[in-house]
């Protein structure tokens, strides 16, 4: 409260200044900040989540446009160019991703099979083979030269069928993301509905619905998913359906807890005494409280779904060829991990960054929506 005391110092200090004034609660100063704006403000303070959001955006963008950047399609096979290491124009000059590979070869074949494609001989040695000494060399070989792909560039190399790994990776990312988002969206819808009914009506309805959940959650989720995919056959839709079978349970539990927390509160009771219908109470008064947790939990569920997808692909229950997904690529890469690590490396990096980003993003959202932190700087 600013008073004119500052400029009137000589006035009697012992003089009532608000004897007749109506004292009231201070007026709320500043503009009211909306729920999402407040969350956004705090979210932006969280650097890790902000970076994570950037990476998610980047990966989504790449999944959309990257396959277009390559001149190869994801199903185009060039058997003669199989298993080429990565080669990127520009970067190849500094010695990495230059399409070369260190190999142990017989000295005699240096001038035959490998003529012209040897970049550098690194070491010469003899190998004992059934008592005979065979002269060997360890040499850096330009695989592109060797396999007659001189002027082509596979940015992430090629797989066993000579398909462009770059295109397949981003195409696979696109499919993995699609499956993840679809599964999570449907799970949220089912979970919110189930949880709301169970939480709002309580009593016998709740009891029965909770027993159903209890029984369902006793089955290992993976077993259910495997059986489902076995029954429906591989494909995007069966994958999504399989993830829905038990995927909604977590969300419904959270929503139910929210309903139990809010439905007994005075403002809900007040609204009910004024004759509000169930629908109004559920959608206007109780559910909006859960919007933060719903968004947060859904964010955490996306990497979960992507994980299950790649897991199933790993099991051989993956999408039918030639459709790639990150899991399919990883499973294929695993078979030749020790000889051709690049086939595992890139999908592994993408899935790790994707899951890391979603988890960090979720952490940021959780803090941003946390009501106990609301309004704090």
């Amino acid at each position, binding site marked *: 409260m600013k008073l004119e005391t500052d400029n009137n110092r000589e006035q009697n200090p012992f003089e009532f200044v608000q004897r007749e004034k109506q004292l009231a609660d201070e007026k709320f100063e500043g503009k009211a900040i909306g729920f999402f704006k407040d969350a956004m403000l705090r979210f932006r303070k969280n650097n890790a989540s902000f970076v994570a959001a950037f990476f998610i955006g980047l990966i989504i963008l790449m999944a959309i446009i990257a396959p277009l950047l390559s001149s190869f399609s994801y199903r185009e096979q060039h058997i003669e160019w199989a298993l080429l290491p990565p080669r990127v124009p520009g970067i190849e000059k500094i010695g990495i991703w230059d399409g070369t590979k260190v190999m142990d070869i017989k000295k005699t074949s240096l001038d035959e099979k490998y003529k012209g494609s040897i970049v550098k001989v690194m070491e010469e040695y003899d190998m004992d083979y059934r008592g005979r000494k065979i002269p060997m060399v360890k040499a850096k070989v330009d695989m592109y030269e060797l396999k007659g792909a001189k002027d082509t560039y596979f940015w992430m190399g090629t797989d066993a069928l000579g398909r462009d790994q770059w295109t397949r990776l981003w195409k696979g990312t696109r499919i993995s993301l699609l499956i993840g988002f679809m599964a999570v969206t449907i799970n949220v819808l089912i979970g919110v509905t189930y949880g709301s009914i169970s939480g709002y009506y309580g009593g016998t309805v709740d009891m029965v619905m909770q*027993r159903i959940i*209890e*029984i*369902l959650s*006793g*089955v*290992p*989720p*993976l*077993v*259910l998913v*495997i*059986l489902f995919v*076995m*029954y429906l056959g591989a494909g995007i839709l069966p994958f999504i359906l399989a993830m829905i079978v038990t995927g909604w349970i977590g969300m419904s539990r959270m929503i139910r807890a929210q309903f139990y927390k809010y439905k007994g509160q005075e403002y809900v009771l007040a609204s009910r005494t004024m004759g509000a219908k169930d629908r109004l109470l559920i959608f206007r008064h109780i559910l909006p409280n859960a919007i933060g947790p719903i968004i947060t939990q859904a964010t955490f569920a996306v*990497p979960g779904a992507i*994980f299950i997808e*790649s*897991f199933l692909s*790993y*099991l*051989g*229950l993956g999408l039918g060829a030639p459709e790639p997904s990150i899991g399919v690529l*990883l499973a294929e*890469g*695993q078979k030749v*991990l*020790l000889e051709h*690590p690049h086939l*595992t490396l890139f999908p*592994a990096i993408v*899935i*790790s960054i994707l*899951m*890391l980003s*979603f*988890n*960090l993003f979720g*952490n940021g959202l959780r803090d941003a929506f946390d009501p106990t932190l609301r309004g704090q700087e």
Partner: protein
Amino acid sequence: MLRYISQRLIAMAITLFLIISLLFFLVHSMPGSIVNDPMLPIDIKERIEAKYHLDKPLVVQYVYFLGDFLTFNFGDSIKVQPKVPVFDIIKDKLPITIQLNILALLFTLPIGVICGIMAALKKNTATDHGLNMMVVLFISVPSFVIAALLQYIVAFKWELVPILLSAEQALTWTKFKSMILPILALSFGEIAIVTRYLRAELCETLNSDYMLLARTKGLSQMQATLRHAIRNSFIPLANIFIPMIFSILSGAIVIENIFSVPGLGSLSINAINALDHPLTIAVMFFYSLIALISILVVDLSYGIIDPRIRMGGKK
């Protein structure tokens, strides 16, 4: 307590029936049944149908099926090991899987607990932040990516441990050394989950009123933390224990495959890929059974540890 146990048992029995029914449904809808072969002579077809009770009504078939499952009679494998009873194959593969899972659990729990306690006690310090970073990293990176990384770097490049599981039967040093990487790959994610959960629980308990009361009655911070906070924060750990068993079990399927562990996991992959349906279904049943038994054990011990459940009080 009795009521609690019987409740748990009933729920579990229903779950078991649900699983078996699901399997039954699956078997019956699976395409490519032998009896559908049009080249099969009628009399042989009838004999087969009689043998597998396929001529009886569906309900009777279900009862037979149920009986078969509860007596562990799953029929013979078709493709993976033709004509060998499925049960014998599983019996053969089970020990190594259980060994691996239990070792992973034994490795996960103490480390996760220690990390969780450290993070909570040193909240908002460098230790805490470091552990937090580890948690996010290990929760995010899938176990099979970690497995591939470990295999390539630790086993292939550094040659510290064997790349694949040793074929020795007994648990020797060589064998154990070859089990280190699978165990690590299985554990990292779970350690992170335990750490995160325990940290949150412990932070809350440390701020509770009874911690203050414990200190005002003369316990030192250390004594109060040990006797009250840590003990109490262990109880909700059961909430993540069951999902953890599921997750290690299912993680093992892929990890076993990567490290060529001849266990249930590799078996299920082989069975799925070879379309050996009787085997797949039996393996899935076994997984469910292991899971159910673990849940029961955890639930019951939970009931014993937490007096609020033991005495039938409200939670």
